[in-house]
């Protein structure tokens, strides 16, 4: 068993960046995730592992620093919160269009615009449907605990390099600011320049190795027929990810009549709702998507064959509910419930919504 610590989600993920052997963090401060860079700088990662931590002049610069380093086969990461992630969408689209691996953290806050600094889950569309231009996808992981914040870093980098894709860890102010028990893993070694060359010389910009063609990382293809072929290649890759990489967790679904679908901090609140409902004799279960994209649509479709209704619970005006409805395809009743704009629903409010919108509705 690793070392146990009491940490904020934002601190745990920062520690995980160091222990995962990340080469660089480029970021720009924004509440409620500034602890990430503050923790990193206080930890002297340049001494611990040689990791680079640099405060950029904007989120725009930060994502392009990430893009640059990602082109070279290094492990690179940034973090921000909703308005900052909006500013990064240009770089995110380029990263998708040039297929380089990297990891982003969005500690979501209330919007739109400057919104507020309280927890929210209203960036689902942006994360899952593509906030930037073009036909692209990114893998989206939704941690629901401080331990998940730590553990998802290794998972995110594994997926990022496996598919040369951007992996977004979508947290929120609640998980970012909350402290929980975390088991800290071993320090992984950063790859040496030589190891990177050996592993990624087919695509990474490491300086043209004698005897090979120059590597180019670009998202530009002026020949539209070739650009269509490239898009088909991307779609095939996305289809493979959708087939193989779906992750979800279930609670008391075996005998459930009704299912709550919730991710991240909302799923934590819904675990309590399941307990409250069971105490009242209501057979309620919870499905928590761990990957928001790819979405566990097959599992939801399966469950729709035998349960009476589903309530999608999200701290938003109703975004994920669209994907739940698509998966259910009209077979049973599906509704959305959630407080938003920085407000957090309580377990009791969720139960009340389930009773009025689904069970009694």
């Amino acid at each position: 068993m690793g070392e146990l610590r009491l940490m904020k989600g934002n601190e745990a993920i920062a520690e995980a960046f160091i222990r995962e052997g990340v080469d660089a963090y480029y970021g720009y401060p924004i509440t409620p995730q500034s602890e990430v860079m503050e923790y990193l700088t206080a930890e002297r990662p340049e001494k611990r592992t040689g990791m680079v931590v640099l405060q950029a002049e904007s989120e725009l610069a930060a994502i392009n620093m990430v893009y640059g380093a990602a082109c070279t086969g290094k492990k690179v990461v940034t973090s921000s919160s909703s308005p900052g992630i909006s500013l990064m969408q240009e770089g995110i689209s380029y990263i998708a269009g040039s297929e380089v691996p990297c990891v982003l953290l969005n500690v979501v806050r209330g919007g739109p615009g400057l919104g507020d600094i309280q927890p929210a889950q209203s960036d689902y569309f942006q994360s899952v449907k593509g906030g930037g231009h073009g036909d692209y996808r990114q893998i989206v992981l939704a941690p629901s605990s401080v331990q998940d914040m730590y553990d998802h870093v290794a998972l995110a980098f594994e997926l990022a390099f496996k598919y040369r894709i951007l992996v977004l860890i979508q947290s929120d102010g609640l998980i970012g600011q909350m402290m929980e028990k975390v088991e800290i893993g071993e320090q992984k070694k950063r790859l040496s320049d030589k190891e990177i060359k050996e592993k990624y010389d087919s695509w990474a910009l490491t300086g043209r190795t004698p005897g090979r063609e120059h590597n180019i990382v670009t998202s530009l293809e002026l020949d539209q027929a070739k650009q269509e072929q490239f898009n088909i290649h991307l779609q095939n890759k996305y289809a493979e990810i959708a087939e193989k990489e779906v992750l979800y967790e279930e609670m008391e679904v075996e005998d459930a009549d009704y299912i709550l679908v919730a991710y991240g901090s909302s799923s934590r609140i819904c675990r309590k709702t399941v307990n409250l409902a069971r105490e009242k004799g209501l057979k309620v279960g919870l499905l928590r998507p761990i990957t928001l994209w790819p979405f566990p649509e097959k599992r939801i479709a399966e469950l729709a064959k035998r349960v009476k209704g589903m309530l999608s619970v999200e701290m938003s005006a109703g975004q994920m509910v669209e994907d739940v409805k698509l998966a259910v395809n009209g077979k049973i009743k599906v509704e959305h419930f959630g407080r938003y704009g920085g407000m957090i629903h309580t377990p009791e409010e969720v139960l009340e919504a389930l009773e009025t919108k689904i069970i009694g509705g």
Partner: protein
Amino acid sequence: MTEEIIIAGFGGQGVLSLGKILAYSAIMQNQEVSWMPSYGPEMRGGTANVTVILSDERISSPVLRKFDTAIILNQQSMDKFEEAVKPGGLLLYDNNGIIHPPTRKDINIYLVEAAKEAAKMGSAKTFNMVVLGAYLKIKPLVELGNVIKGLKKSLPERHHKLIPMNEKAILQGMEIVKEEHLV
């Protein structure tokens, strides 16, 4: 065992660190914990509160409407959280600055004059540890030895010399806590 606690008072009373030390102490005996502060503009308005959950099982919602225990350290918090204690639950408060003491009859109410005691001890900063001692006397969920370990973990090394003083404050809190009303 699951214990859901709200600790509420003024910023500067050590509300958040009281919660943190309690949570760290529970980790020392391998329990699950969550520590969820209110933050943002609310904090700047002078009040601070933190929800702490200790459990033998995986913790569900860190956001709660009802609590097993409310530790209340100013009047604003009394106004807000007296009603949030579950029937049969515990309300522990310091009467310093309290104009309207708690009135509920369906909960257990305890008083700890921690501000007065800390002043007497000549160290206002140990106020929150007096409160912690009082709480642990009523609900001995965490062993004192683990609290000391928790203190060591949550305090930076340079402050470790203050641990004996904090331990004394905890013991003092255990000593002076008074029952006001029992269900």
